[in-house]
């Protein structure tokens, strides 16, 4: 799934998953920017959010965000690798 230019234009996946993904990215990105400012860093490169239901993962690039919502729990390293390759 992709979010283009930070706007709510979501492509790929089922509508419910896409909606959840967009909401998650927006929420995490908001707090991540605040945390980056506190840490003296520029911004978020990659995020993985894990709850009891599964994982939402995304990568931020200059052209937008891409990632996925998954019911499976993969290792952080594995999720990171697949996001960096895509």
């Amino acid at each position, binding site marked *: 799934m992709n979010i283009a230019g930070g706007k709510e234009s979501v492509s790929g996946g089922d509508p419910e998953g896409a909606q959840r993904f967009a909401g998650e990215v927006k*929420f*995490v990105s908001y*707090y*991540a920017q*605040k*945390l*980056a400012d*506190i*840490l*003296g*860093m*520029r*911004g*978020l*490169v*990659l*995020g*993985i*959010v*894990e*709850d*009891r239901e599964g994982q939402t993962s995304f990568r931020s690039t200059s052209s937008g965000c891409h990632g996925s919502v998954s019911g499976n729990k*993969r*290792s*952080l*390293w*594995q999720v*990171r*690798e697949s996001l960096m*390759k895509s």
Partner: protein
Amino acid sequence: MSLNSLIAAAAALQRLEGVAGIVLFKGKNTVHKQMPFSDGRTLDLQETVGQMMDGYRQVRRKMRQIYLEFDGGTLLILTQEESILVLLLTGRADADLVSSAAGVLMNDHALLLAQLSTDAGSSQGKTADGIEELVVTSPRRLQEMSEKAEPVVNNWGQVRKVIESILGKVMGRAQASNLIDRTLDEEKVADPYRLTASQVRKLAETIIEHIPNTSKRRQLLTELESHLEELNL
């Protein structure tokens, strides 16, 4: 209620490679903090992470962990009820190993964490005469803890990388990754980080034994053997 064991365990986490800082807190109550910047900045960090977690709590989401990789470092946030553990990682950290060890810490001290107050300063360890208690986490104590924890949290992250690089010689990366996951399912391994050293070794060999070509398989098993020795398995 003594927090010594909890603080010692948190300090031991910081000794894992690539862990640059740690904060454990519940509401406004800071249990342990050791960050490579000022207390003010650490407090800002706690407040922001706290607000983020409150957001999830409001919609009744049971969060486990959040991994935020920034351009200059990574924040790994683990949560259990209202208690929050924040770890600042460098690029040298094995995030899966740190996550697993931090999860063990939170689970082992779940009862203690549940009893903690959320009020500021309530875990400062001050006695009636106002003198602050100093918890000494001596290298010996930390070494004992690491040894004790070893069978529980292994270096599966590194072993997996080794297996993937070995399998990469005979198949694509995605295929190698799928083969490892499939074997984990077949062997009914829910959490490979909880296996003992001998179980990790056996699992690694089982994965390589899926290679159908006999001579190739032997060659890869020999290669695996030398890598496992380097990893002290």
